[in-house]
């Protein structure tokens, strides 16, 4: 057995797992920075909770639903509580099953933490717990099974290398469904429905978050090779250049649209580039990766605008635009720019078609099931805090604390 394990690959996947882990700190800080100081304990507790709870739930039930069995739609319970996982190689890989599990567990929790930003500043903590448990324990595993676990989309040839769809769109569409039920924050839209700016509280924290996410993405994408091959440097390069392109595009657009370069959108643009390159990172050239990043950076600016001003949906950190919309674009971009079978690079449309099917099917399942979950929660324990709680802030009311007790605040 030990013959088949490649220790170099094993080490790579472990290190990649650690890098994905640090993305949770990235999400925590960027979401805390982009929301108000009266909700900082709330958002931090939610994000840290997500990785803690996610590690447990994914071990108990999520992993087995995603990665066991022969089913086209969902796994079975053969790895319940990760029973049976050991250091023998995971089928098809040269790394121990345990290493494969660790990497997957880190991934699963990120999809939940995406939701946390969109629902920030008004969701009840208990309701958030339920949403995220269902997401990590059921919804995410189903999609992961479809695409990576031997389900119907993988049979179709759907290509989502590191999870533009599996992780990011799943998080983004869950966020979308949840905030539709949840409604906008108090004061987000004026009496004429015009969106108002609600500034976050700490740009330094937000920047720490964005760059830690970029850093962690070097585990997210290159690690998804699940081996250290000669192709890995390319994946790291495409990841990096798409992030750069996304940021520069968004920064430039805000400069020419609004008159001033906008730090919030700049950071969002970087994430947009990263999310978009996640699906195609292993199959496009660095030059096309730059193009994908630039486009994602443009998309995210207009998506934020559209979701807010036209759909009247309130997403404090832009999670739906960054993860949902750019996750969709990234998935599609495989069909456009893949060196092997992209429409633009090779003239063939078949992969694009598969990518569309997979994206739409994912949207359908995730959006509808998240809508049901949110609605049921809303009708039972309630999804949203009362207005006074929201106005006073969740920290003092739900968590009994103040995130910066020494400072005088507005």
């Amino acid at each position, binding site marked *: 057995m030990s013959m088949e394990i490649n220790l170099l690959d094993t080490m790579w996947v472990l290190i990649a797992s650690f890098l994905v882990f640090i993305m949770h700190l990235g999400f925590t800080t960027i979401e805390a920075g982009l929301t108000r100081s009266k909700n900082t304990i709330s958002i931090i507790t939610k994000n840290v909770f997500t990785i803690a709870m996610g590690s447990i739930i994914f071990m108990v039930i999520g992993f087995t639903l995603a990665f066991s069995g022969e089913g086209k739609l969902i796994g079975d319970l053969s790895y319940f509580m990760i029973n049976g996982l050991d250091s023998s190689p995971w089928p098809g890989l040269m790394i121990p099953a345990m290493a494969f599990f660790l990497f997957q567990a880190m991934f699963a929790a990120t999809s939940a933490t995406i939701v946390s930003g969109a629902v920030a500043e008004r969701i009840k903590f208990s309701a958030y717990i339920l949403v995220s448990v269902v997401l990590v324990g059921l919804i995410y595993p189903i999609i992961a099974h479809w695409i990576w676990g031997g389900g119907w989309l993988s049979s179709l040839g759907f290509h989502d290398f590191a999870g533009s769809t599996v992780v990011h769109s799943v998080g983004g569409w869950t966020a979308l469904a949840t905030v539709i039920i949840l409604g906008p924050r108090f004061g987000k839209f004026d009496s004429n429905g015009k969106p108002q700016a609600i500034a976050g509280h700490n740009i330094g924290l937000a920047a720490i978050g964005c760059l830690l996410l970029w850093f962690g993405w070097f585990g997210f994408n290159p690690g998804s090779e699940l081996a250290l091959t000669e192709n890995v440097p390319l994946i790291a390069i495409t990841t990096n250049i798409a992030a750069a392109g996304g940021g520069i595009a968004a920064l430039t657009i805000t400069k020419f649209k609004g008159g001033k370069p906008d730090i919030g959108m700049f950071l969002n643009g970087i994430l947009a580039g990263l999310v978009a390159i996640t699906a195609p990172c292993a199959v496009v050239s660095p030059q096309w990766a730059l193009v994908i990043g630039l486009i994602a950076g443009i998309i995210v600016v207009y998506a934020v605008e559209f979701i807010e001003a036209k759909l009247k949906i309130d997403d404090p950190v832009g999670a739906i635009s960054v993860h949902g919309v750019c996750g969709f674009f990234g998935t599609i971009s495989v069909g456009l720019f893949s060196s092997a079978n992209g429409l633009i690079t090779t003239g063939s449309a078949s992969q694009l078609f598969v990518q569309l099917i997979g994206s739409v099917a994912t949207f359908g399942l995730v959006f509808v099931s998240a809508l049901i979950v949110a609605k049921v929660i809303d009708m039972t324990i309630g999804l949203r805090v009362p207005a006074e709680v929201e106005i006073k802030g969740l920290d003092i009311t739900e968590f009994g604390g*103040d995130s910066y007790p020494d400072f005088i605040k507005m």
Partner: protein
Amino acid sequence: MKKIEAIIRPEKIQDVKAALDSLGCVGMTITEVKGRGKQGGVTQQWRGRQYHIDLLPKIKIELVVKTKYVDKVVNTIIESAKTGQTGDGKIFVSPVEKVYRVRTGEIDEEAI
């Protein structure tokens, strides 16, 4: 001329500003303050241990107005700042002898 000092709840500042606007009363100076009174304070926790904070955040609005407007302004503030629960705040009116506008050196009623 009189100075009106109103201590109000922070969450009421937008309403009070809007109400004063519609009165044409734009000039004002506000300060973040903390206050205590009949209202009981709040209990917070820190690493599991609870503690009491008796000084709660309030906003102080200062307006200097012509004497004849005092009642109107005071009533407007009371209406827009009231919730009916302890902690709504106080309004103090006191004399002002002279007012200057720094920009122009204008004085008294012209300067308000």
